[in-house]
């Protein structure tokens, strides 16, 4: 299997997984979000650390991107 076929397979698998998880939209009630609201559960909870790391890595590696738009945690904007 070449890299391109492998990448399509990975993409398909991840999309199926996400759609499956999306089915349980009420799986976590507001009263159960104590741990999700903790700062360690927020993706990119320190924006300056994330941007400094991106800055270093893009000058050492050919790949780029992939950091999300932050968020997570309690699931509220």
């Amino acid at each position, binding site marked *: 299997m070449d890299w391109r076929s492998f990448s399509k397979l990975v993409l398909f698998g991840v999309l199926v997984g996400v759609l499956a998880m999306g089915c349980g939209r009420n799986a976590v009630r507001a009263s159960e979000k104590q741990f999700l609201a903790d700062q360690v*559960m927020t993706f990119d909870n320190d924006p300056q650390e994330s941007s400094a790391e991106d800055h270093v890595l893009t000058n050492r590696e050919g790949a780029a*991107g992939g950091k999300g738009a932050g968020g997570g945690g309690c699931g509220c904007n």
Partner: protein
Amino acid sequence: MQLRLTCLLLLATSVASAEDRAEVSTTLFAEQRDGGQGGLTVVHPQAEVGTDIGRHVTFDLGYAADAVSGATATTFQVDATTAATTFTDLRHEGRLALGFQGRRSRIVFSGTVGTERDYITRQVGGAASIDLPGRNTTVGLAYNHNFDITCDKDQALLMPLERRALTGMDECAKTGLILGKDVAGMTVWRPVSIDTVQATLTQNVSPTMNFQLALYGQILEGFQSNPYRRVRIGGNSPQEHIPDTRARWSITARVNQFLPALKAAVHVNARFYDDTWRVIGGDLELAYSQYIGNALLVRFRARAYQQSAAKFFKDAFFYETESTAGEYFTGDRELSPVRSAIAGAKLTLITVGEENPVWGLFDKLQFNLKGDLMWLVPIAADRPEDNPAGIDKQFLNGNGLIDAVVLQLGLLGNY
């Protein structure tokens, strides 16, 4: 007029909510250099202030700088270190963002300008996110466009193999700091257009687990070579020449799992990357966060990365003895096959003002100290058995056990 401005400022201050924030940090990056060339050192201070104006509007102002000093591989050849030269540079970057937020949604418009001796960044963009019903799923979309320009020698009429590299002596003239000014017969500013889009989906899976999927795409058009870098082709050393168009994409999956019994969390991050220059890469990161009491948070992490070479990349010996790969040639380490690793730790000291504000101002204050060790292992792009020169000295980075270190010190306050 002055009175009206004062009133507006007072009004803005009075309606600012407790979500206002300020963050300052300084990052030191030090990379080893081979052959007695000293090291590459980058000091990267950042400062950002954000304030909520009323319930629905946010305003952010940021500044960052790069003070760079060290040696650079201006010549790419079998022994790059013999032709390395030292340099210093200073880059300034300013950012402004205006956001609007509702009960479940948020949209932010931003503008960034950056300037240094030979490169000017002008970026505009926007990012939006919304919580879907149930508030367990957040969907985000972001887009940026860069109108960048880079300084180069004025040599458009020459064939690639005849072009000379830019040097530190060539003048890169500017007007108004962020506009390039060509110097006839000497230097020109060449455009680089960058379109970046990213879609993010964040999902609460259980009361202790969440998941994020990020899809990233970028198209770059314009002059993307390092104007200073030369490649040895036979007895000639022309400026590096790479394609003007690059399209790239990546997919990243991240999972956080909280462990209530330990007051800790495990983090997993995996990414796959691909582009039209045929650089294919992937990385895997594992991290562990542990609270010690209520005020101390420690995080340990390890990351491994590997990529393949761009389709026009050759090891230096083969460019020199066999000529180019089609019409292109490069000495860029980022386009070579490479393997790298990071191991590090971060210490966070959290102070919450229960009854009285911390330092009389902050509801919450965080002090961060982070350190990373980095390793880099170049891999042969071509047949090692046919390469008597080897690849150990084709890049300027050292071959020591630890290739680079990162130290970061930061202070984040909510007031």
